[in-house]
């Protein structure tokens, strides 16, 4: 494909990623969050595929498939089970209200653009230009992690953070060596599985998956 098309596709995917991130920050229903997360995974997969096609590397195409399977299908499914087991569609109450969260997210986006200057300096072309999106996703993820009380939404936040990192990785350097990539994906999967199991246990122990109950260990 030619550069302009590539550029458009990359920016489209980046836009989708960013959009889904904002929506996750916005929405308070868990099911919606998971849905948008899946969308985000898909967008990421597409992005990888685009880059792979542009660089004409079969390896990246394969990775794209992997990403699609993992981030767009498998992990959301796991999360859905975690949600479905209990309070489907429940509206959680974050630490900061939605307005504040959205303002914060926009601020974080700006910050992301500021801080990723040296990162862009490294690479060149449209891919490098989209790097701030990845950083922004990372920061969104952290924001969700630090402000959502529900266990599942913490999972969502973690995965968004991971997506952000992956985005940066693919945009800036076409991913890391395959073996590392595999290891990373496996690790992420395992962590999510563990967290899902723990979520179940928390439900049985504490009645709900509300993290405010988890403050008995203190000094």
């Amino acid at each position, binding site marked *: 494909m030619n550069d302009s098309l590539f550029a458009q596709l990359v920016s489209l995917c980046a836009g989708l990623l960013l959009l889904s991130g904002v929506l996750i920050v916005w929405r308070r229903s868990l099911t919606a969050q998971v849905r948008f997360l899946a969308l985000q995974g898909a967008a990421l997969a597409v992005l990888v595929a685009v880059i792979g096609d542009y660089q004409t590397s079969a390896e990246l195409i394969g990775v794209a498939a992997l990403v699609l399977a993992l981030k767009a299908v498998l992990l959301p499914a796991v999360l859905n089970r975690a949600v479905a087991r209990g309070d489907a569609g429940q509206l959680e109450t974050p630490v900061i209200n939605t307005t504040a969260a959205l303002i914060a997210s926009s601020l974080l986006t700006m910050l992301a653009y500021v*801080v990723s200057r040296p990162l862009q300096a490294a690479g060149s072309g449209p891919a490098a230009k989209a790097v701030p999106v990845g950083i922004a996703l990372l920061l969104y993820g952290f924001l969700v992690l630090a402000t959502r009380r529900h266990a599942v939404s913490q999972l969502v936040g973690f995965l968004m953070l991971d997506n952000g990192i992956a985005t940066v990785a693919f945009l800036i350097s076409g991913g890391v060596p395959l073996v590392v990539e595999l290891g990373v994906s496996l690790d992420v999967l395992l962590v999510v599985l563990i967290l899902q199991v723990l979520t179940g246990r928390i439900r049985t122990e504490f009645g709900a998956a509300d993290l405010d109950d988890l403050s008995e260990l203190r000094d």
Partner: protein
Amino acid sequence: MSGVAGGIYTQVSLTVLAVLASVLVPPAHRARVAGMTVAAVGVAGAVTGALALAGGHAGSIEIPMSLPFDPVVLAPDALGGFFMLVAGCVGAVAAVFAIGYVHGPSASRTAWSALAAFLLAVQLVPAAADAVSFLLMWELMALASTVLVLTEHAARVEVRSAALWYAAMTQLSFLMILAGFAVLAAAGHGTGFAAMGTVDPGSTAAAVAFVLLALGFATKSGIVPVHVWLPRAHPAAPSHVSAVMSAAMVKMGVYGVLLVVVRLLPGGPYWWGLLLIALGAVSAVYGILQASVASDLKRLLGYSTTENVGLMFLAAGTAVLLRAYGISVSAEVALVACLLLVVSHAAFKTTLFLGAGSVLHATGERDLDRLGGLGARMPTTAAAFGVGALGAAALPVTCGFVAEWALLQSLIHGARPQDRLVSVVMPVSVAVVALTAGLALMTFVKAYGIAFLARPRSAEAAVAADSPTSMRVSLVAAASAVVVLGLIPGVMVSAAARATELRGVGPVWVGGIDLSGVAARLDPVGLTVMAALVTLPVLLIVWRLARRRPRRPVDLAWGCGGVRVSPRMQYTATSFAEPLSRVFDDALRPARDVEVTHLSESRYLVERVQFSQRLDDVVEVRAYRPVIGLADRFGVFARRLQNGSILRYLGYSFVALLLVLVVVTL
């Protein structure tokens, strides 16, 4: 292998032997075997010290390290040998004393092993030739002594807090010394004392290092205001341990100061001297004041240690000050006086602590107000303690008097009209020394008179009996040291002169002192002969009179008619010190509490009057308690950092991430 190196190896192997002995020998014989071995460690230390003193840099041992330090070497010089000698003698005597003294926890395997290790560490601190080995021995000393202070933790409640204070203050001292040496090492490009010696005493680094080191060593020596551990730890520890701590370990602080001002950074600026003098003067006066009003015998002795170390600091400071002003002769005398104070204090303080231990062993009492009349029941202890008290009160003919005399000589010959500063400082120092001497006199008259004279104030004191042989032997040994060194101080002086390479001092005919530099001489033997000459006729008369009419015991003292005098009517230590504590009310701030209950019929008639007085350490109450309280409150507040909410924890990480991102990219 030179004699010194051999001596050090001997000490180490003997220590290992002692530890094995105390672990393996069954309790029945443990005290005897372990005690003799530990004493052997002390003797080996004394011999090694003497060799080092005689031969200067005679031998060295390198300790293999797994870290790339500069060579870590034990190589005592003359000064170190001097202190090693003192420590060794003290240790040997104390160990022999312990044979008869230990019982219960203090006779345990741990206690004996710790004693051996403690002795070894104390003897090897002055052997260190570089910062690392010095700190190593220093911390070994701290660890072992802490264990020993904790010995009787199960028997008495106050031991725990005493050990805690001791450990914390010791760590403070260690950290300051570590920092000081580190500064010197950075400036001198090496941790060896030789490398540190290349630092220019006038430089900033030297100044910083000096302040740190001086304060660190002061802490270990129980100098005011960092003395708070001392009056707690000494009563808490078993008496033979208190003896070693007070007579040998505390001296290592003095050694450290001398190491800095004589060996590492000679010729420092005058204000170093002023700092030392100020510390010393305050400690001397404050210490002896507290001692003079204390009624716990070992607490009293502890505070008196603070006083004596204060005098040593004062002497060392005088030396520095005078050298800075080029008054080298008096400076030398001051240095010698410092070393004389070290020796004499070692001698009489050992005697006193062992005596106190003997009393404790016989009566189970440390409180003077419950003692009395022991002179008749435990003559040896009484005699030894009396000699020790004479020494502590700096009366002739004891080594204490000689040391104080030398100090005064250096002071009164120090000043020259043209040096305004010196001619202001010297008189003040003389006054301080004089006041200290006077109060010391009072303190030890009280200690001896109340404990050993008159009639017993408690049942325990009434049934006391003198101590077992080993204790009596070591008591006599220590006491005779006090007298002999007082009679022929020439020995001490020539040793001190050798240790500091001085010329202005020397012995005269029968072991007297000749401070040729300041045209002063002292010959206790002559004085004694003279005293004997004038005593002779008096004794003759006494003898003839006694033959004619021997003294007749009557049953009781005069009770002001009618009232029969009961022991409870005697003056106690508290009442003895009452006038003084009134005079110095502002300094001591005793908490007095008089409770008067009137008769129900009339408020003019008193049924009962209750008087109670508590004397806490002013410095501790005013300076330390607030800080500790503050720290505690901070600790409580800081708990909120870790309040258990994972969201907050994630927030910490988030903020850290944002900060780092901003910092590294902007």
